[in-house]
């Protein structure tokens, strides 16, 4: 798990963003009415997916740093 810990900021930010998105889409939006509900649902879903995208960006960032990409599983 060294590569995940080495890139922890991206993982934390990505997971947090995704969780906030899920909370908005599934927790907050159903309490709203009319258009606000749809905006909440779609906004939350997009935010959650953006969180997953942030994780991908983090991995890409790690791959661009040669010294970190040398770290292998189990080392």
């Amino acid at each position: 798990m060294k590569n995940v810990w080495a890139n922890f900021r991206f993982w934390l930010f990505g997971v947090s963003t995704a969780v906030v998105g899920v909370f908005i889409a599934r927790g907050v939006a159903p309490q709203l009415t009319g258009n606000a509900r749809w905006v909440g649902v779609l906004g939350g879903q997009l935010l959650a997916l953006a969180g997953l995208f942030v994780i991908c960006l983090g991995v890409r960032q790690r791959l661009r740093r040669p010294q970190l990409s040398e770290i292998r599983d189990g080392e």
Partner: protein
Amino acid sequence: MHLHDLLNIFQGLTSLFSSSWPILLGRIGLMLLGMLLVYLGKKGVLEPLLMIPMGLGMSAVNAGVLFLDPVTAAAATDGQVGLSAATHGTLMMAPLVQKTDNLMYMLQVDFLQPIYTFAFSNGLIACFVFMGIGVLLDVGFVLARPFLSMFLALSAELGTVATFPIAVAMGLNYREAASIAMVGGADGPMVLFTSLTLAKDLFVPITVVAYLYLGLTYGGYPYLIRYLVPKKLIGLKMPAKPIVRVTSDEKLTFAVVACTVLCLLFPSAAPLFLSLFVGVAVREAGLSYFVAFIDGPVLYGATLFLGLLLGVLCEASIILNPKVLILLILGIIALLLSAIGGICGGYMAYYFSGRKINPVIGIAGVSCVPSTAKVAQKEVSKVTPDAVILPEALGANISGVITTAILTGIYVTIVPLLTP
């Protein structure tokens, strides 16, 4: 001995000629179509793993129609026909049965009924296929090139999104429109899952149309590439990049996070997400026994019975629906739009990258794993044999699977809310 007795011996023929004209022609046509599918499967024009059992099932079910005894006929049709009526039927499967008593009776009569009831109509078989796909996927391609992969995958969902309003305009309701629009995702299990969830009455023709067309992507998309992309660009060599290594811990962690987040967002499609990511997780965790089990018996067993059951479901009386023609048109529109969207995405990537990215990669965003990625590489190799686009194409391809699963989740979640 009278002619009447002879006809009773050969009930398949007797029931054929005692049917109404549309059913008679439909049965003969479907028997011939089944034989054609077997032939095309053997020739490699269509996917043989699916088409050979499907074609044989289609021929057999339309040939093996007999006169059911009144009790079986009543159970098979859920009591919708009078007990004295001479009803045609088969000893293979009764997909319309709903009542528990009738279902228990039919489970003891029709030999494929247990598989249909316990594995097909609840979407389990689609999930098995998806597990197999998960084991084959390397999400590292997506993690290494997230922008390109996701952009191309989103572009290649044009058919999945745009076919929905077209289908509604052509007279389908929202549920049917969403189910047929999923053909644009070019992912069979997803079409099966969506149509089973949203449009159970039409799931047979929709799924058959989907699988027939998916078989054609391998043969049809190369022509589309040649038509839409000039030869100079098809042969474009991309700058060589160092081999990147996304470690299995990153891929496993991503699979866990993505599965959890997507299940939280779209609980209706949670079985699909779980199946896909359990495959990815098993692969990345290095559980070789599970990988061998899912990759072999589960995937191939599910594919065999999926093909066989789809074929058997193509009985003339079930498949002959006035909406089938509309579904055939919409299916081809969906796949065509997705391919065009993917190639347009490829062109955009080509221009935004300073003319470095080969636009053919765009078609790999259509999530028929790994066919479209292979098609893209094959077409490029024909023009420039040493050009390699497969890693980027696979990234787009795998992203395509994930975006199609997300769109399935969106349709399955939102469409019931739109339907009165």
